[in-house]
C-alpha cells in the first residue's frame, strides 16, 4: 500500500518537473501533502487511537490547506507571472530528473541488501529531496524556490516514514511547526522583496558580493 502511494508520489515529481506553471507546483504540493498524510494514517487503520491521529490531521491541515493557500495568496497578491522561468530546457531537466531517479533507485536497492528497508518509499523520498534541490537550482522565481524547498521537505518526510523512525509526536509537530514558520517568513520576505527590490527572482538578489 505504501509503495503504491510512493509511486504516485514519484509521478507527482515527474509532473512537477515538466510543469511550466507556478500553479502546477502548488497543486503538486497539495497532492503530495495528501499522499503523505495518507501514508502516515495507514498504521492507524489497524489500531485506531485518537492520540495518534493528531499528527496526520495536522499534517493534512498544514500541507494541504495552509501552506498551499498561503502560497496561492502570495502569488495573487504579488501577481507573479504564471510561467516559471527555467534556466535550462524542460526536456534536459526531465532527463536529469529521470537519470538521478534511476540512480537513486538502483543505489537504494543495492543498499537494501545490507540493511532491510522498504526501497520504494525510501528511494522516492530521496529522489524528492534531490529534485527539490534541482528545482531550486534550475529555476529563477523565488516562489518556485519555496515550492522546491517544500518538495524537499515532503521528500524528507516520506523518507522518514520509509526508515521507520519513531520520533516522539511533539517533535514531529515541532518539525511541522518549524517548516510552516519557515514558509511564513519566506512569504513575508517575498512580500518585501517584491515591494523593495521590484522582482520575484534571484536576479534581484545580487547586491551582496565582495
Amino acid at each position, binding site marked *: 500500500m505504501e509503495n503504491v502511494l510512493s509511486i504516485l508520489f514519484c509521478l507527482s515529481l515527474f509532473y512537477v518537473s515538466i510543469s511550466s506553471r507556478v500553479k502546477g507546483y502548488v497543486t503538486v504540493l497539495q497532492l503530495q501533502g495528501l499522499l503523505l498524510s495518507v501514508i502516515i494514517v495507514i498504521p492507524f487503520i489497524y489500531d485506531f487511537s485518537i492520540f495518534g491521529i493528531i499528527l496526520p490531521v495536522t499534517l493534512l491541515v498544514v500541507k494541504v490547506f495552509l501552506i498551499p493557500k498561503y502560497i496561492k495568496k502570495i502569488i495573487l497578491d504579488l501577481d507573479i507571472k504564471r510561467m516559471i522561468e527555467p534556466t535550462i530546457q524542460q526536456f534536459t531537466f526531465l532527463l536529469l530528473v529521470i537519470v538521478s531517479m534511476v540512480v537513486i533507485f538502483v543505489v537504494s536497492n543495492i543498499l537494501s541488501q545490507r540493511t532491510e528497508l522498504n526501497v520504494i518509499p525510501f528511494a522516492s523520498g530521496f529522489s524528492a529531496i534531490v529534485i527539490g*534541490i534541482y528545482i*531550486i*537550482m*534550475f529555476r529563477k522565481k523565488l516562489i518556485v*524556490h519555496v515550492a522546491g524547498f517544500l518538495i524537499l521537505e515532503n521528500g524528507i518526510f516520506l523518507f522518514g516514514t520509509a526508515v521507520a523512525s519513531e520520533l516522539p509526536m511533539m517533535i514531529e509537530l515541532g518539525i511541522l511547526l518549524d517548516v510552516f514558520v519557515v514558509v511564513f517568513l519566506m512569504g513575508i520576505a517575498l512580500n518585501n522583496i517584491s515591494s523593495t527590490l521590484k522582482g520575484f527572482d*534571484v536576479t534581484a*538578489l*545580487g*547586491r*551582496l*558580493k*565582495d
Partner: protein
Amino acid sequence: MNGLLNSGNVLFIAAFVIQLSALIPVAFIRSERKFFLTSNIILLIGLVIGLISTLSSSLFSSSQLINDTLLFDNWIRLDGLGLFFLFIIQLVAIPTTIFNFSYLQHYIDQERPIKSFVISYTVLLVSTQFIVIANQAILFLVSWEVMSMSAYLGMILEREKEEVHKGSFYYLVASHVIVFVIYIFFFLLHHQTNSWFLSDYHVSLTLRNTLPILFILSFIGFGIKAGFMPFHFWLPQAHPIAPTVLSAFLSGVIIKTGIYGILRTFQFLNPIPEWCGWVVLVISILSAIFGVWYALAQHDIKRLLAYHSVENIGIIGIGIGIGFIGSANKIPALEVLGFGGALLHTLNHAIFKSLLFLGSGVISNNLGTRNIELMGGIVHRAKYLAIFFLIGSVAISGIPPFNGFVSEFIIYNGFFQAAKELKNYYPFIMLIFVVGLAFVGGLAVACFTKINSIIFLGTERKEIKHFHTSVYDYISLGILSLLCIAIGFYPRIFIGIVNKVIGSGFVSADSSALIGMNWLSLTLIFSAILLSAVVLYFVKVKIQKKYGRRTSATWGCGYENITPRMQYTASSFADELNIIPKTILVYHKKVEISKGAFPKQTAFESHSQDFVDNKIVLPLYGFLKKIISKIEFLSQTDIRYYIGFILIIITVYGIIAFLWK
C-alpha cells in the same frame, strides 16, 4: 619561590613594579604633559633601580657567577646571558627615557596626543626586560609578542603619514612571521624534553636528530628580528619612521633580542655542528658588507642608521659564527674570542647606535627633515651635539680609541686564533673573512665621514631658523658618549664581565684567550694618543699665537661668490662607491650634463631601493594576489550556487566515504 627574599631580588622585583606603575597615572591625570612627565619620571626611577639591582647581581660582582638563579618556581631565570642583556637593555633605556623629556615636548607643542605612545613605551621597556629573564617558554613568547606589539603601537605616533603607515606595517608583518617560526621552534623543544622551561632545554643528545631543523628555525625566526641580510627588509622600513626615542631603542636593543635568541639556541643545542657556524659566518659577512653599502646609498639619516644596524648585526653574527666553529672543533680559545666579541659588540652597538639615533632625532626635529642633503653647518649651531655625534660615528666605524674598535679587535683576534688552531685551508678562508671585515670597516668610514661632514660641517645648505637643543638631549647623549669612551679606553672591566657570561654555559673548557689579551697596552696606547694630542694641540696653539692666525673665506679657485649649494653633496660623495654594486643596491642616478656655451641648470640625483624588498618580497606578494584574483568560482552571489555547493560537497564527501578503507 626559592631564595626570593634576599636583598637583590627585592630590588629586582621593586624595579619591575615601579616601572609598571608608570602606567598608573594614565588613570587620573588628564593633561597630556603632566601625565607624561610623571610617568616618565617614575619609569626612570624604576629603570635606575633595575640597573642597580642588575649591577649588584653576581655577574658584576667579583664573586663567582651563580649560573642559574631561578625565581617564582623557575619562571624567571637570572643567568649570565640574561643578566648581560638585561644590563644592556637598562643601560640604553635610561638615556632614551631621559631623552623623552625633551623629545615628547615637541609633540605636545604640536598638540598631538602622546598618551598612547607613553603607555606603549613603558610596556615595551618592561616586556623587553622580561624576554631576557623569562625561563618559561610561554612567558617568553608572551613577552616577545607584547614587546613587538607595544613597539608597533609606539611606532604609529605619526600614523597619518603614509610612510609611517607602511613602515610600521612591515614591522608588524615581520614580527608575526617571526612568532610563527618561533612557535614551531619551541613546540619541538617542548616535545623533545616535555618541559616548558628554558633551563631544561640543553639536552643536546636527545635533540640530535632534529638539531638541524631547530637551528634553521631559530636562525630564521630570531634572524628576522635581528635583521640578518635576507630577512632584513622590514628593518630599514620600520626604524626610520618610528619616533626617535623608539627607533633608538629598536635599533639599540630590540633587534638584539634576536641575537639573544640565537645565543640561547646555541646553549640549547651545544655542541653545535660546524656547518651551522659556516652558515652564520657567510650570512653575517654578507649582511655586514651589503648593510653598510646600502647605508652608504641612503640620504635619509635614520634609514641610513637602520642599515648600519644590519651591518653591525652582521659583525655580531661573525663573532657568533667564529664561536660556533670553535665549539664545533672544541677550541675554547676560539669560542671565547668569538662569543666574547659578539657579546661585547652587542653592548657597544647598543650604546653608539642609540647615541647616533638620538642625535639624529635632535637634528631632524629641529630641521623638520631627515634628508641629509638639506642639512649642513650644524656644528656652528650645536657644537657639543656635533662632538657627541662624532664620537658615536668614530665608535661605530670601529676606529680606535672608542668602544667599536675593541669588539672588532676581539673578533679579528678570533680569526687569527682560528687560523692558528685549525691548519690546512682554514687560514685562507679566515683571511677572506678578515678582508671582508676590513672592507666593512672601510665602507663604514666612508659612510660616517659622509654623514658627519654633510650634516655638521660646511655651511647650511638650507637656512636654519633656530636650532633648539635642551639639556636633556645633552645628558642622554653625554651618558652614551661617556660609555663609548669608557669601554674604548678601559675595556678590561667589560671584558671581565663578558668573559664571565661566556663562562656560564658557552665554552667547553674555560680559556684565558680573552682575558689574557694585552688590554693594558691598548689602554696605554690610547691614553698616550689622547695625552700627546692634547699637548701637541696646545703647543700648536702657542705657535699659532707666535706666528699669527686669522680666518678668511674658503679659497674658491678664484671664484668669488660661493653659495652653500656649491658644496660637495652626500650623493656625489658616495656615488663613486655606489655605482660598483648598482644592481644589488638597485641604485639609479639621473645626471644631466650641461651643454653649449651657456649651460642651463643641471641636476644630479641618485636613489637606492632595497633589493630583497623590491625584487623579491613585493613581487611575490603581487604574484600571490594575482593568482587569488583568478579564483572566481567561490565568489558567487546567487543563492542557487549556494544550494549547489551543498549538493557538490556532499557528493565529494560521499565519494571519499565510498573510497574509504
